[in-house]
């Protein structure tokens, strides 16, 4: 199997590390070698969070090389933009359109770029961009907190993640608290269907 690099980026509290762990666990279930890197420590205070999921026989290092991400899963537009150095024209970018402006922008006389500006810059990098309303779909599933699973569902629907849907669902069942499981399964389906519909047009 070819090496697959997935970069996940967003804001502390969006469930990025759990999403990465679910992807890694699903890969391991299929006997694939995997590394999931996390940088945390101060994430609880709304800082930027980034994680790498690397799948492949020869993978040893925790992070992907610049320009070498096969997929960039953006949990937040600004953070997606910030991590574009991992992307190239071959990268598939799946982005949640939920803007979370960093606090204190007004005192710094800075503006949060508009969603249009952000997508424009991203599209200059790669044409494979899918924007989805993960927060809205998550609310529909029962809670905004399931947006990470919506995004995983969406990622899987692109057909580029080298693991079976069943393994992913099993990983979700293992790692999500039982009382929230139904909600998360619904979130997975919603994300999956949304992107499936969208990519039929795009690819």
């Amino acid at each position, binding site marked *: 199997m070819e090496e697959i690099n997935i970069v996940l980026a967003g*804001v*502390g509290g969006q469930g990025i*590390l*759990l999403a*990465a*762990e679910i992807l*890694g*666990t699903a890969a*391991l279930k299929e006997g694939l*070698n*995997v*590394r*999931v*890197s*996390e*940088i*945390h*420590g*101060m*994430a*609880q*205070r*709304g*800082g*930027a969070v980034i994680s790498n999921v690397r799948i492949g026989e*020869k*993978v*040893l*290092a*925790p*992070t992907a*090389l*610049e*320009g*070498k991400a096969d997929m960039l899963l953006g949990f937040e537009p*600004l*953070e997606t*933009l*910030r991590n*574009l*150095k991992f992307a190239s024209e071959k990268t598939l970018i799946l982005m949640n359109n939920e803007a979370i*402006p*960093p*606090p*204190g*922008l*007004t*005192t*710094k006389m*800075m*503006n*949060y*770029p508009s969603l249009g500006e952000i997508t424009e*810059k991203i599209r200059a990098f790669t044409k494979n961009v899918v924007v989805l309303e993960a927060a809205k779909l998550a609310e529909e599933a029962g809670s*905004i907190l399931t947006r990470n699973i919506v995004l995983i569902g969406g990622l899987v629907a692109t057909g580029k993640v080298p693991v079976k849907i069943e393994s992913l669902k099993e990983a979700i069942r293992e*790692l999500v608290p039982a009382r929230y499981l139904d909600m998360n399964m619904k979130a997975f389906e919603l994300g999956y269907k949304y992107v499936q519909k969208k990519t039929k047009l795009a690819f």
Partner: protein
Amino acid sequence: MPDSHVLLKDSPGKHVLLLGNEAIARGILEAGISVVTTYPGTPASEIGDSISAIAAEAGLYMEYSTNEIVAVEVAAGAANCGIRALTAMKHVGLNVASDLVMTLAYAGVRGGFVIVTADDPECYSSQNEQDNRFYALLSNLPCLEPSNSQEAKDMTISAIEISEKLELPVLLRTTTRIGHTRGPVAYSRLTKPNLKGKFIRDVKRLVMIPANSRPKHPVLLKSLEKAKEISEKSPYNRVMHEGKNKEFGVISSSSAYNYTVEAADLLGLDVSILKLGMTHPLPEKMIGKFLKRHEKIIIVEELEPYLEMQIKAIAKDYAPNVKIYGKMNKPYFPREGELSTRTVATGLAKITSKKLPINFRKIDERYAEIAKDLPPRPPILCAGCPHRASFYVIKKVAGEKAVFPTDIGCYALGIAPPLNVGDIMICMGASIGTAQGIGKVTSADTIAIIGDSTFFHAGIPGLINAVYNNHKIIVAVLDNLTTAMTGHQPHPGTGITGMHNPTEKILIENVAEGCGVKYVKVVDPFKIKEAEATLKEALQYPGPSVIVFRAPCALMVVRERRRKGAEIVACKITNKCINCMACIKLLGCPALIVEEGTVSINETLCVACGLCASVCPYDAIECPEED
């Protein structure tokens, strides 16, 4: 997050995706390590936290000790009764514990004892990026360095075995990338813990008066020779790949090894790689043999040239003509920050005159264009954080002229605007001591800022010094009733132990009074008027004073309310608001938002702490009544 109970499954052969730190916890259970002590610190915290979650069920003893030296003392005591023990800490924790460790190396242990030191190249969450492999050289203790989760588990077990063979503590050195990267781990059998130790009186061995320690030094050096034999035969030290290229040979360890393999692959460089997992003492003969086989040797290691210095000395004896490339004379690899496949590939390409297949410069340039106007997203105090209220009060009363030596914890984020509190911060506990020096030689009011966990960890000797030498400082203890920064671990003031048992709550105000401080007050930082009055009074007090600002961490409050199923109703801005921006300029709460000149409150973020309502000059913010 994963349930720590997966660590307790006795299912040999099962493969589980674990963080390096969780893998060490699994190693603890497989090795039958029975006493685990720690003081939290990123990137080591998950070791202690995983064990704390399952200790009672597993039948072992775990504690969050007051600080790192006490943690090592407790474990060393148990290990000297023949019990297997482990202490985990972040790299700078070993500075705190080093006084004990240096001489414990003379006394030794009877049961296996592993000291985990988690280094932090790149200072992701630390005040420095010191390379603790030098502690192995300094103390003459053996050191193992895992390069992935599987090795993290295996080496925990090997370290215990080596420790018992040599009767010495063994260092297990990880880094952020090892502890915080998940990888597959194959389970082996669990070993039942044993907490029934026996203390054997042996004064010559254990009482380190000069007459006893002097003869212990040569004994330690002899053990080091034995350790060298272990290192020569260690499965962790071996040539991982025999390359076709006979000109160059590469020596590497830990994370650097992972980058090296991928970088060599990227460059199409088919070189032999000697991987070192036991990095103290080094397998001199094995390295000598490897040096002899090559004309040129490349050493890839993170941070200091620890291997390079020693390998150069080995080369003098074994292969004086071999050319060695690393970071000492001509720096092919950086000595600061963490390595990456990119930095290693760049260095390897330069040394071997290979061409990099990726144009990183082009990527950088393209990215710089995009990144140039991006607003940063630094960590900040949470919405509703009690520290924000304390800082507001402190700044308002003490003003711009006062000096604020601060300390390590969430409250270090008080240096950010608009609060701007924090003028010097070096290491845990230093706020109280540095305040005294500054106060002595300047006329400024000096207010030391320190957290509750930090106060217990290292603040008390400094406070006693202030009383004894009569330094007129104010110590503001920001007591949020937890060790928040590192993941909300309990501490001596919380009334709960690492085994999840209730215990005596040690009150900071009582400690301060016991230390002889005559002016000690406890305030609620959200009761702004009272807190201000108290601080004003303390500023007039002629001797050292302590004010405990006590209110729980907002994250804990929110979790507790969620657990109870209580709804959190956000505060509201009423039409009395004239958008004067006072709340924005004074507080910087992330829930307070300005859009096109209008202030609003983000309902998902606001936890209704009421601070903005208290500072609003127009009484325009309404908060729900407290239940």
